[in-house]
């Protein structure tokens, strides 16, 4: 079998206990659904002897809540919501249909039962050169991300560009979500747009002793039109070769009043397509969809970190964006 390294498992019963354990055990890591971290541990990608299992926090962190705040309504998703739960939750289906859609397309049925929202948002970046066994990586000569010094994707690259591969991230980014983080130094709320970093070795602002406990999505009065698309080779059990999400607000007159487009599975950070302000006020139509496709293509550079031909992915990106935007407009 693919054996696990020797390690200890700690099973806290509350967020407080979990954070204490994280702070006190050297190199401790969080185990939520385990669908990402366990395969990675089996591949020898982490040096850790302590896993902090979150199952005992389920009653605390497994909720979908709607509440009204000063800035209007929002929907709060506990970090231990399972992917399966989010794909079926009535509130999510109603207010965040693109998120439900993304969740339905993650991995396979069993993995969706196991995997959590927190784990998905904190999913380690992926690369064809790193998600392999110790033997395989040794035959390659290892790489920057673990045990080595070179990058096999970007020759002479000094930074790991392994791909953010989580499917909920682009949707939540497009919807303007933020995450709540708890650590030994207290609690902080970080807009998701500031959460991800350009570093494949550690692509979030999360400190090793911090826990992501919640994602919150604002629900503006004018409901956002939204859509998600995932390109993959296999219809299940397959990570994205490209994923993208779009959210737009449209006035009764059919003009765009707000707009966000996020493309991911490119490099370490999901790419929020920038400089779209000039499109606000334009009609939400085919022309807009095509323009967004062109801009996305200009700003996105697929790499060989994912097994599907980067040139091809770049080539069809405008088509994928156009179709997804049109789907959102029609929703």
């Amino acid at each position: 079998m693919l054996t696990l390294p020797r390690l200890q498992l700690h099973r806290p019963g509350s967020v407080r206990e979990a954070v204490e354990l994280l702070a006190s055990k050297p190199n401790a890591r969080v185990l939520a659904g385990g669908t990402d971290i366990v395969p990675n541990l089996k591949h020898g990608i982490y040096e850790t002897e302590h896993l902090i299992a979150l199952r005992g926090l389920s009653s605390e962190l497994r909720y979908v809540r709607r509440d009204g705040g000063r800035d209007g309504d929002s929907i709060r998703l506990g970090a231990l919501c399972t992917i399966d739960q989010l794909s079926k939750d009535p509130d999510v289906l109603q207010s965040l249909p693109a998120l439900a859609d993304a969740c339905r397309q993650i991995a396979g049925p069993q993995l969706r039962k196991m995997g959590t929202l927190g784990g998905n948002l904190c999913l380690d970046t992926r690369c064809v050169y790193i998600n392999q066994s110790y033997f395989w990586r040794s035959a390659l000569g290892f790489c920057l991300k673990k045990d080595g010094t070179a990058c096999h994707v970007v020759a002479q690259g000094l930074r790991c560009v392994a791909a953010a591969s989580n499917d909920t991230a682009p949707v939540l980014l497009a919807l303007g979500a933020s995450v709540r983080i708890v650590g030994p130094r207290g609690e902080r709320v970080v807009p998701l747009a500031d959460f991800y970093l350009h570093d494949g070795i550690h692509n979030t602002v999360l400190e090793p002793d911090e826990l992501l406990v919640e994602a919150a999505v604002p629900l503006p009065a004018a409901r956002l039109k939204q859509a998600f698309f995932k390109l993959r080779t296999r219809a299940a059990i397959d990570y994205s070769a490209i994923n993208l999400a779009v959210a737009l607000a449209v006035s009764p007159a059919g003009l765009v009043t707000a707009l966000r487009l996020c493309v991911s599975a490119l490099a370490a950070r999901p790419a929020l397509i920038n400089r779209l302000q000039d499109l606000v006020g334009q009609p939400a139509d085919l022309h807009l969809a095509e323009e967004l496709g062109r801009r996305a293509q200009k700003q996105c550079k697929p790499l060989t970190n994912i097994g599907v031909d980067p040139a091809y992915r770049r080539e069809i990106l405008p088509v994928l964006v156009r179709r997804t935007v049109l789907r959102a407009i029609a929703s």
Partner: protein
Amino acid sequence: MSRSSHHERGDIGARFPKVDGAGKADGSGVYTDDLAFPRMLHAKLLRSPHAHARILNIDVSAAERLPGVIATLVGAEMPAKYGVIPWTHDEQALATDHVRFIGDEVACVAALDERTAEEALRLIRVDYEPLPALLSAEEALAHPEIKVNEKAKVGNITKEVKLEFGPVDEAIATAAAITRERYQYAGSTHAPIEPHCAVARVDGDGNLTVWSSTQIPHYVHRELARVLGLPPARVRVIQPLLGGAFGGKSDPFSLEFCVAKLALKTGRPVKILFTREEVFYAHRGRHPMAMDVTVALDAGGRISAVDNKILIDGGAYASFGLVTAYYAGQLLTGPYRFGTYRFDSKRMYTNKPPCGPKRGHGSVQPRFAFEVALDEAAEKLGIDPIEVRRRNFIGEDVETVNGQRITSNGFLKCLELVEQASGWKERHGKLGPGRGLGVAGSMYISGTAYPVYPNEMPQSGVLVKLDRSGRVAVFSGASDIGQGVNTLLCQIAAEELGCDPREVTVVAADTDLTPVDMGAYSSRVTFMNGLAAREACEKLARKLKAAASVRVGDEIELELGTVRGPRGSISFAEACQLAEAAEGAPLSATGGYRTQKLGGNYRGGTIGASPAYSFTAHVAEVEVDEETGIWKVTRIWAAHDCGKALNPTLVEGQIEGSVYMGAAEAQMEEMVYGKQGLLFGPSLLDYKIPTSLDTPLIDALIVESHDPNGPYGAKEAGEGPLHPAIPAIANAIHDACGIRLRELPFYPQRVLQLLQARVPGQERRTAC
């Protein structure tokens, strides 16, 4: 649960549920890794990180000092070479001085648990002198001075075959339509869901038993004895339930030798279970082939010439490669009549995991190329794809251009069934943009006249024993690899002896207890083992009838548990008792399949010569997204002539599984290697095999042509139906959007490139 009546009977032609089905349904079936013994050790293999290197030194001392490590093993302890084919012994269980691909086995550690064994591997020091690696057949051809495998007599060629039947060039010169194209078939692998596993134990008398997930217990038996230097009578090989094989478990593998040697060394049971990654290195999958194919049609659309130049990328070892080089050419000459034919096939050694026999061994690749080329040539003459296949039908009781004897041939019926079921006449060429239908046909062998190691003994044997309780025990060497041969043995016993098939015990694939069978490859099992079983049962039936006639009179009928005669009837058990009394000894009989002399009268003429051929036709339906090149095969109608369906449920299962696997190769499967020769993504995540959502709806249609030679008229069903899936899909994509795919897999980017290169007006194939 109501069971329909056809489940009650169990004779020939019944949809009898698999005999091991219930054992598997409740989880009680025992596969190799389900075995555990007291004091059992777990071993792991150290593999070469170099695609090509000389081994200068191996130092296992640090590994041996690790607590929990019980023994280590290096190649020098069993250096003898082996291989499934006696003329190409070119493998070692553990390399002594030369590693030939990334993943080649170098050393082995047995420890108290797997993790300790794995950690010990990292303590083994191997000094390598890297050598230049040859990573493609072209490179191997260009660099004869770099020797991948010393077994090659010339350069890096495992085997070259060049044969010409009739004046090919003349026929080409006078053809009415010709296609001459290059086709590239990517390598793919079997990926059975069960990883390879072997367990060895030595008893107090020094007898060695090896349980292995193999489909060739007999060859493993032979090679184990030879390599370990043990008398074969001291070695026993048992094949437990097998979790899929498809040809991927039909070579002896390092793990079998290593567990055996370590068990001998330590006196303790030893197990090796391959990780999924190691299954990819064991490989023996589909050979990559580059094929330059010419197909010539005369004005009437008759195939006047076929010429095929085939370059085969074999990987580091020969495996069945000798046969591959022949099969690539020899198996193409039906179901159509070829006016003339020539092939030149060359299998090269390269520094990659060894290729071997994957379902449809050797012939899936040229079949793809030929069926696409045929479509293309027919289009030039304006002939409908089904019509051109019908027009060239070779017939029954004929000899092919290369001297193979075809007996029964239900191909026309197959074509007719898929034509009707798919609504071809109304729909082909008329489905609207991005949707299309394609057709292809094929032929395959039911075992071969070439028994791998020639000898005078039978290729397959069965021993049947009757108990006075009425219980029938069938001892058979054949491997049930999921295809259901054990069930067929029960049905044959029921048919011949008139016993209840549920009262038959099958003891199979245990070299101590069962007669020899060569193994589950080349679609030989049902045919050869079935005939052997029938022969044994017939002998017993005669004795039963003779004994029972004393009580019930002559003219006896044996039917499902009852022995009926003019003077009444007795139970099957009573008949057994009468017969045993008459015999004065326990009742048993044996049957064998003796190799027939078949095939063309030239060197290699027997390879690919089969006592009977199966035939298949497919129609595939596809949808192509012309903006992205993303396509989907939505449905495949597959009609297969299996001679006689001994059990239609099992035959349908074989057809469906074959169609799935063929469609998978068209869609997504490829063994991709990096510059260093490192296999990309050796996992079921990166090497993608289709899920339920990727698999087309499959309509399996059975055609029976009642072969005069097969058991009850049966031929094969396990490999033939894979072949047409790939060209049928390619032809369907052409129907949908006018492009010709000549390289596998049909990745969306390849489709898109061809779509973009289309000249205006070529969007659709024109309906004929």
